[in-house]
């Protein structure tokens, strides 16, 4: 399968700094997104450290499969999923350590949602309230559970999904990277099919733009980069109360036609990096 990706981040219309961070590592088909929190500029430090740690750990493991695994990932998962979970555990340690060593960073933390694709196997590792979605057959499905207080209340039947959307407690997380020495990391493995579309995003998108609007935009815009830009524009049009980050990944059937050898460089895609602050 051919994998095309695009991503973008924006400070939004209300905040003065962007604490989100994302990266597309296309040689590995690894996609990482993080939303930082903490006073001053510490949210930016936390999210950048989270993304950097995950990417570095996965790249190292790509060339050396026997690199140490962190956080005892459960047996029964693929090596790829275990590696991705290990990377998230390591990111948690690095942020926590940094906050311990620098008292001014106390209380900083970050969400992290990462996708790693090899062949038709998708691995997901996730902590916090950023989201991964799958658009398949016109249906948008969330592949991650939000680790937020309101989502937990919905799961326990205390409030309804529509009450959760109105709640003033939406920013309260139950889990994040860097706030405790160890963290529980969610994992998920899925089979992918041609024409599947994956979306990674921070809550700055999902709080402003409804699921049908997201699905409609993804279906209307074939180019992943343009789709990501349009989703960010939509979130800003409706208020842009938080930083917005979006990664769009499109899976296409690899051409096996008679003339496919004539098409040059069909599989090569330059990596694209994005960081908070836009350098």
């Amino acid at each position, binding site marked *: 399968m051919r994998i095309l990706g695009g991503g973008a981040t924006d400070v939004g219309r209300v905040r003065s700094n962007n604490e989100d961070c994302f990266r597309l590592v296309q040689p590995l088909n690894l996609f990482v997104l993080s939303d930082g929190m903490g006073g001053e500029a510490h949210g930016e430090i936390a999210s950048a450290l989270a993304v950097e740690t995950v990417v570095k750990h996965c790249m190292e493991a790509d060339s050396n499969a026997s690199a140490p695994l962190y956080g005892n990932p459960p047996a029964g998962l693929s090596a790829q999923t275990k590696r991705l979970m290990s990377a998230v555990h390591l990111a948690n340690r690095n942020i926590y350590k940094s906050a311990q060593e620098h008292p001014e960073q106390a209380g900083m*933390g970050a969400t992290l949602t990462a996708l790693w694709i090899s062949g038709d196997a998708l691995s997901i590792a996730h902590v916090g309230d950023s989201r991964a979605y799958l658009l398949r057959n016109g249906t948008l499905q969330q592949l991650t559970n939000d680790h937020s207080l309101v989502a*937990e209340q919905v799961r326990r039947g205390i409030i309804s*999904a529509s009450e959760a959307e109105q709640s003033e407690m*939406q920013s309260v997380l*139950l*889990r994040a990277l860097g706030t405790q020495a160890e963290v529980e990391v969610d994992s*998920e493995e899925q089979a992918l*099919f041609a024409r599947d579309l994956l979306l990674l995003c921070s809550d700055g998108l999902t709080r402003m733009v409804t699921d049908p609007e997201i699905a409609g935009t993804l279906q209307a815009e074939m180019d992943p980069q343009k789709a990501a830009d349009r989703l960010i524009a939509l979130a800003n049009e409706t208020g842009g109360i938080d930083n917005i980050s979006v990664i769009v990944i499109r899976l296409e059937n690899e051409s096996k036609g008679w003339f496919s050898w004539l098409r040059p460089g069909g599989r090569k895609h330059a990596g694209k990096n994005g960081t908070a602050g836009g350098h």
Partner: protein
Amino acid sequence: MPKLSLMFEGKTVKEVPIGNRPITIGRSPDNDLPVDNLAVSNHHARVYYEGARLVVEDLDSLNGTFVNDLRIERATLHDGDSIHVGKHYIKVDASHDAPMPYDMGRKAAAPAINETMVLDTKARREMLSQAAAMGERTQFASGRIKVPTILVLSGKTANKEYILTNKLTTIGKSAMATVRLTGWFKPEMAAQISQRDDGYYIGPGAKTPAVNGTPIAGPVRLNDGDLIEVSGVRMNFIFRE
């Protein structure tokens, strides 16, 4: 207000409105809805709102509680459903809105939080139990663990029983499908079941599944005991305790 009507031999014997307290059903006279029949246990079942959902729960009765003729431990009720206990049946009228008396209190108690924050384990437990106390009726339910399960009734699949552990469960011939269909002419991905915060939803893939005999147009929420038919396979969706 939604209500329960106790029926016996075609006649309404008693009606009780469903408020914010659970309605208990049983042979003992201290029940909200006493049913005088030897086949009914002293405290047989109860009906209550869990969020916006109306739920019936069997209280380990001897002869069981049935919803639309299917034996249940716990099930979501819909308008027009009938609950059978002993020789009686209870008609569910949920055509009116669920009562929301605790709503005001909950909103007043919740301070607005703009900055993202993380609760530590202790604060989290306190907040959740506080929230649970406001919706008092949910305490009973939260103690039980429900395991969503697919039981294959007929058709060719790799296994006969699947526990749904993933956010997304695919049904199809693909080697990576959870519920793997075997045999000729089966689609790679026939249908899929996704777990959302408020329940499990089945959606179409290459085929349009039918739920309880009705083909679905888009994702449909699955209830305990629903019958799913897709690509020549018949399955039961149930919650195991």
